[in-house]
């Protein structure tokens, strides 16, 4: 280490601290670069946060004597301090290269590979210069006619297209939500005073106008949502080269195939996808692909294939990250799960359950020695952030042939059609598109100690919100065993639940707001919204609710 620090000091632990902190700072740089590339600019507060992270990393690197790291970070910081109006591609490319090289260097400090990694960083400076600020109208045309033609075409096309800051679209969306709220309140009001309005002879006209308002609100919402659509290719954008870079570092080869890049999604979903996808791509390169030797031994071509596929399915989008490596190593997963204390002694999970272990908190640790990409982040973090977005994350594999992660998100996170109901004295809502059916089951049956409801040929586990969320005692007759008036069947994949409801209220579009941070992330709840009468409605997450319910039923079955 080129040290500024003198001898005689115990530096053990210092490098670990530095590396740990740097990983977080470089994560911020990665996220910022991806956002910058997607949107053409890095907005506040990300920019200020990034500057702070870079500044600290610069200082720390200088303190430890890593001038090469310090210098590159300083150059990057300088660019973000005074960003250009339009970022030239060569600069962007160099920053991406630099981010990868920084990560490599940070992982290698204190090891034998330190010098090479630092040298690589030095070669990346100076950064490509910014063009001198010239007003767009006077920008010189390209030397060849093709470039000139492109420019003219671009200018021509520009008149058909408007650049609108996303903030304005967000504001529009909020107003649309407000219109729905007003309609709901109006609807409620006229219904309550129906008799009086009929007597006054104004009922038919009022009723018609309120219905018209709803139709127009629907159209308004559809139009507003259309404005926000963005092709998913924007999120895929940088992943191919990132994956190739990462693979190269690990001595692996990969070719990246994209499918469905034109699939259009709401901007909120595209933004939400970026980080989980990044982790999945990293994970695929780290653990999925395999080195050329390993692959040859398995009868595969040395070059691995990483497939990123986006498909719209109804009101959700499914993004798959698929590799053609060796699939999930169940023995290794089982071993690690036992080491991490995730399994009871003697517990023997089946194949599917073993696969699901990788999403459990505590499965991977931050200091994994074999995470060469420098990321100790667990799939549990990815899974929980996806769940918070009312999405799902699952894994499928064919041992020896490959692994596929399936990430699912709603098409838009902004407005959700929801079924409002009352249960256990609380106002609740379920996303309407995930409700299969509502039944009037009467008294639930019991199978092996757990309550179930008949739905066609199937027996669906009953979920009583009061018991699941702890609002009422288990001993309370209302909470277990009592007849239920309605059961709302929800399904996520192959699992389902029958949610007990005392009253079904209505179906309406709601704007789901995240719960305030101090409430944490209760499982089974995705957020809250406000009913027309001002009461708070808890919006449930079907996936989380199903899992919560299954866990509760498992516990009941195990009890003697």
């Amino acid at each position, binding site marked *: 280490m080129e040290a*500024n*620090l*003198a001898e005689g*000091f*115990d*530096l053990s*632990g*210092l490098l670990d*601290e*530095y590396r*740990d*902190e*740097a990983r977080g700072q470089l994560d911020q740089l990665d996220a910022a670069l991806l956002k910058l590339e997607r949107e053409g600019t890095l907005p506040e507060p990300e920019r200020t946060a990034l500057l*702070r992270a870079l*500044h*600290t990393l*610069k*200082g*720390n690197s*200088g*303190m*430890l*004597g890593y001038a090469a790291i310090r210098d590159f970070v300083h150059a990057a910081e300088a660019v973000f301090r005074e960003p250009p109006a339009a970022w030239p591609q060569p600069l962007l490319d160099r920053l991406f290269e630099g981010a990868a090289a920084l990560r490599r260097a940070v992982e290698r400090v204190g090891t034998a590979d330190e010098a090479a990694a630092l040298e690589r960083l030095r070669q990346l400076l100076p950064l490509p210069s910014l063009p001198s600020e010239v007003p767009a109208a006077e920008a010189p045309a390209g030397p060849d006619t093709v470039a000139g033609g492109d420019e003219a075409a671009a200018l021509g096309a520009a008149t058909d297209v408007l650049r609108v800051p996303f903030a304005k679209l967000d504001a529009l969306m909020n107003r649309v939500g407000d219109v729905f709220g007003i309609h709901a309140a109006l609807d409620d009001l006229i219904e309550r005073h129906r008799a009086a309005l009929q007597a006054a002879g104004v009922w038919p006209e009022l009723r018609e106008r309120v219905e018209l308002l709803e139709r127009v609100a629907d159209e308004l919402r559809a139009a507003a949502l259309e404005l926000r659509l963005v092709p998913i290719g924007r999120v895929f954008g940088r992943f191919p080269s990132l994956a190739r870079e990462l693979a190269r570092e690990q001595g692996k080869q990969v070719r990246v195939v994209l499918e469905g890049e034109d699939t259009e999604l709401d901007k909120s979903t595209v933004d939400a996808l970026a980080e989980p996808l990044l982790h999945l791509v990293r994970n695929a390169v780290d653990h999925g692909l395999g080195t050329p030797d390993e692959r040859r031994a398995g009868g595969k071509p040395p070059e691995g294939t990483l497939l990123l596929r986006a498909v719209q399915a109804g009101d959700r989008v499914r993004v798959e990250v698929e590799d053609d490596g060796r699939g999930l190593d169940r023995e290794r997963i089982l071993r690690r799960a036992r080491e991490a204390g995730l399994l009871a002694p003697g517990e023997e999970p089946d194949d599917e359950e073993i696969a699901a272990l990788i999403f459990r908190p505590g499965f991977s640790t931050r200091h994994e020695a074999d995470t060469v990409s420098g990321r100790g982040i667990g799939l549990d973090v990815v899974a929980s952030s996806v769940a918070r977005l009312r999405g799902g994350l699952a894994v499928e594999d064919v041992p020896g042939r490959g692994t596929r992660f399936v990430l699912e998100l709603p098409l838009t996170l902004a407005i959700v059609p929801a079924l409002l109901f009352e249960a256990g004295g609380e106002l609740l809502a379920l996303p309407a598109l995930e409700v299969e059916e509502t039944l009037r089951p009467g008294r639930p049956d019991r199978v092996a100690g757990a309550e179930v409801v008949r739905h066609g040929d199937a027996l669906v586990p009953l979920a009583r919100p009061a018991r699941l969320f702890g609002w009422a005692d288990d001993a309370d007759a209302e909470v277990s065993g009592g007849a239920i008036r309605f059961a709302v069947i929800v399904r996520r994949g192959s699992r389902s639940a029958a949610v007990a409801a005392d009253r079904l209220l209505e179906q309406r579009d709601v704007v789901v707001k995240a719960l305030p941070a101090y409430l944490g992330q209760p499982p089974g709840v995705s957020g809250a919204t406000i009913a027309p009468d001002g009461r708070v409605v808890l919006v449930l997450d079907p996936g989380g609710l199903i899992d919560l319910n299954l866990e509760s039923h498992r516990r009941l079955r195990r009890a003697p």
Partner: protein
Amino acid sequence: MPRKPGKILIVEDSPTMCQLYRIVLGRDGTELVFAGTGVEALDLAAQQPDVELFIVDINMPQMDGLEFLRRLRGELGVRETPAIVISTEGEEADRRAAEAAGADAYLRKPWTPEQLLSAVEAVAAGG
């Protein structure tokens, strides 16, 4: 013989830097107290009047180091306890701003342990 301070309050949000301070300053039984934000630091300073030295990083989130120092000297009225301000920039203007805020010494990063220890001894002795 300059006396080594018994308790130092360090206002610094980087875990790496905190570890460095521990390594360099924590050897001879000096008690180190860390605050990750200016607000936390003001709280601690108010609760622990036996702090003998403040080491303040200028670059802190929300309330920067100089703002903390101004409030320490002003609102909290802690005027006698010496404070060293740590910065990465090192321009003259920065140094003067630090002094105006109530710093007794100004140190630029990257500092060597010798430089830090000298600065600590110098201000602790009232220099």
